């Protein structure tokens, strides 16, 4: 089982619903977020392009945060989901420094926090909160090892990219183009 997410940049309108849904679902303190929106404008008026992406922890298969964590608080859980065991976390920020995606932050209670792919929902067969609320159905979550999963089908039929592939982290959040 390899959990992954695909964000359809053709559908994403950058409304931030994923951000606020994550905050309420996971009780993320105001002022912090586990997912966020990036908008990239290209070209000169009136020949313009705009890419909008909902970004979060990439749950990398070769995660630098897991490698650098001195206490093994950052670890791989079921389906390759990268989690932080907060009681083991000493707040040294090695993982924050090593993450090329800037996906982690220090929770006001002192440990490192980030996206969990809503593992508590996934275990019940539900989508992560961000996926479940997205008004334009721009996000697909599923198992890459299952060729019949929606995400596998989307990846097989659409052009896609991942972020900073040259970092060799093997990210598992993909952007459909």
């Amino acid at each position, binding site marked *: 089982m390899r959990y992954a997410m695909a964000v359809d940049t*053709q*559908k994403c*309108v*950058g*409304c*931030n*619903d994923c*951000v*606020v*849904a994550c*905050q*309420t*679902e*996971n*009780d993320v303190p*105001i*002022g912090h*977020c586990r997912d966020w929106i990036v908008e990239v*404008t290209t*070209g*000169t*008026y*009136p020949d*313009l*392009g*705009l890419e*909008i992406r909902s970004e979060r922890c990439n749950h990398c298969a070769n995660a630098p945060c897991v490698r650098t964590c001195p206490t093994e608080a950052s670890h791989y*859980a*079921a389906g390759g*989901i990268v*989690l932080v*065991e*907060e*009681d083991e976390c000493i707040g040294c920020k090695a993982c924050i420094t090593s993450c090329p995606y800037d996906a982690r932050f220090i929770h006001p209670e002192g440990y490192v926090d980030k996206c*969990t792919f809503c*593992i*508590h929902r996934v*275990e*019940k*067969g*539900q989508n992560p909160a961000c996926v*479940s*609320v*997205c*008004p*334009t*159905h*721009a996000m697909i979550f599923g198992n890459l090892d299952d060729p019949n999963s929606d995400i596998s089908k989307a990846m097989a039929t659409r052009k896609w990219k991942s972020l900073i592939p040259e970092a060799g982290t093997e990210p598992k959040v993909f952007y459909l183009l």
Partner: protein
Amino acid sequence: MNRREFIKIAGVGAGSLAFATPLFDFSKEEILAPDAHPGMYSKRTPTYCEICFWKCAGWVHTNDKGQIWKITGNNDDPHSNGRLCPRGTGGVGMYTDEDRLKTPLIRTGERGKQVFREATWDEAFTYIADGLKKIAEEHGPECVALFTHGSGGKYFGDLIKAYGSKNIAAPSYAQCRGPREVGFIATYGEGVQSPERVDIRDTRCLVLIGSHFGENMHNGPVQEIAQATGKGATIITVDPRFSTVASKSKFWLPIKPATDMALLLAWMHVIINEDLYDKEYIEKYAYGFEDLKAHVAQMTPEWAYGITTIKPEVIRETAREMANASPRVIVHPGRHVTWYGDDTQRLRAVAMLNALLGSWGRRGGYYYPAKVSFKSFPHPAFPKPARSWKDAFPGKYKLAGLALASGICDATVPSSERDCSFKGWIVNGTNLIHTLPNQENTLKAIDALDLMVVIDTMPMEITGYADVILPECTYLERYDNIRVGPHREPTIALRMPAAKPKYNTKPAWWMAKGIAEKMGLGHYFAWKDIEEKLEWELKQVGSSLEEMKRLGVKKFQRDDDDPLYPMEDLDDFEFYTNTGKIELYSTAMEDEGYDPLPKYTAHEEPPYGYYRLIYGRAPMHTFSRTANNPNLTDLMDENSVWVNPKVAQEWDLKNGQYLWLENQDGVVSKTPIKVRITERIRFDSVYMVHGFGHTNNKLTRAYGRGASDADLITKVHIDPVMGGTGMRGNFVTFRFEAGKELSS
């Protein structure tokens, strides 16, 4: 146990709980089910959202301590399809906001100075009842008006109708969608309504003129646009700004602002002259085609190019794109359409273009909505008022179908030309200082009032001017009327309290009934409490409060003789117009002395060094209503002014610098605004999101953040047909200090 600990435990047990028991037991009224950990329960209560007018139905989830945890969409709701927008998801912030109005307040200082004393509900009601009685005795009850936005308005509306006035105005008419309703009624005999009757889901081509779906998060249409484009529909967006939806469009027409009418006329010219219109449909249903053909004969794409800056071949190509999709094409009427003062005529042109394409009453075009026939709890007949707001405007705005908020405001400013000016305002849930253009005029009107009552959940600019402030509890803490909205399928939706009202706040129904009782008008509110009223009303449609608490949304069947697309197969149909036809040539407009066919009028252009002020929406905010919401301000806590890089270079502006905006009348924004240099805006315009620049320091998160476009809208172009306030004819320049003249 808090939520975070719970996640951790769930994480440790990874895999073992997969596909456990369903989260909710749908057979029970109070839906309780064990979550992943024993003792962790969640309960859900139905609601419909109050953060915007879309009123999406959803569920409020509370944890085992009875605290509101999150809000999600109701899968049976056609407004939300189970998915709320960011504002609906973040609606919980409206409840938790610690700056909320907490208890009734009575003004003790000068209007606008925000000096109040706390009062009991009884004191507040007595003050209001005495004030209303005095106005009725001295001037007549018709001199009281209600301004309203939102659910509570129904109860205060009944209150002032019982009192003897029918002056009930929503700024959503004359400051927003009014011209569209009038333009479409003049053409089809029916308006577009809300939610808009557009069949985006099944369209093949969607044309948006200034509509910025995605940034404007009208939930249903945004969802349907994604659905339609996923099935191959194309979008044509006309906007001087490269909006989010422009970036998703096959064609983006970066039009010179204020010239849309020329484009619409040229499109009609191409569609008629290239024989692209739906001939059978026009022959069967339309009146005045030959007049229209002659009218647009000279309005070629080459003519329009000189006005709009859109190349002739692009005008032709986009007209053909629409015609290829016909009849499954929607030239969208937009919603906030009070732009230049000839807005009813522009929306007439939109309506006519749709008719040429045969899209009205057709799949993928405009559908015929259905609504549950819903009876309100019986009350005695309301007294017949002797006067209405219209008497203040003899011979003007003859096609205005609803009261004009701006008109009532104008008719409050004392004038020797009128026998009676308005003396009392009840303002429910609308921050008129930011809603109405021309603040100076609004303040003059307020100054002339004998009584002003404001009902809101939050302190706003308008609350500062009130004599009495009544603190309403949020939509998460109250019942309201059943939502009975028109849609493809008729539905009803329930809102009920998910938590007890915080502080000393109360629902609108309780306030209106209390004031009515104080005034001896209690018999108009003959129910014991809201539950009794709702129970009676639901019984009439074969439901009950118990059922609605369980379902949240109840679906009804459409009548068989009420087709969704009555023109699909060219069946006979009589339109509610003078001719019984779709009026390309409007006899109603002609009868009232307005142009029966829309004409292009050149609008004023920005003077040298000034830029047209364009304003719009951000997906995570609804006007003032969300300005201080902790969850939503966390996503966006100030607006910025979008400036084209060429303009920025001329003025030596830097990204992120703060400056003030000054308009053509020398009015300067009250607060500074951050510069955003972006290619996404035309060189002759600037853009900002509406709803920021709050000056009430009781809004701790919103105070002084960003600037208000409303401050700068001092020039208003009134629509002669229906009194809409055109607000896009204001021009701004940059200034680098507050309150001083520019040196260069």
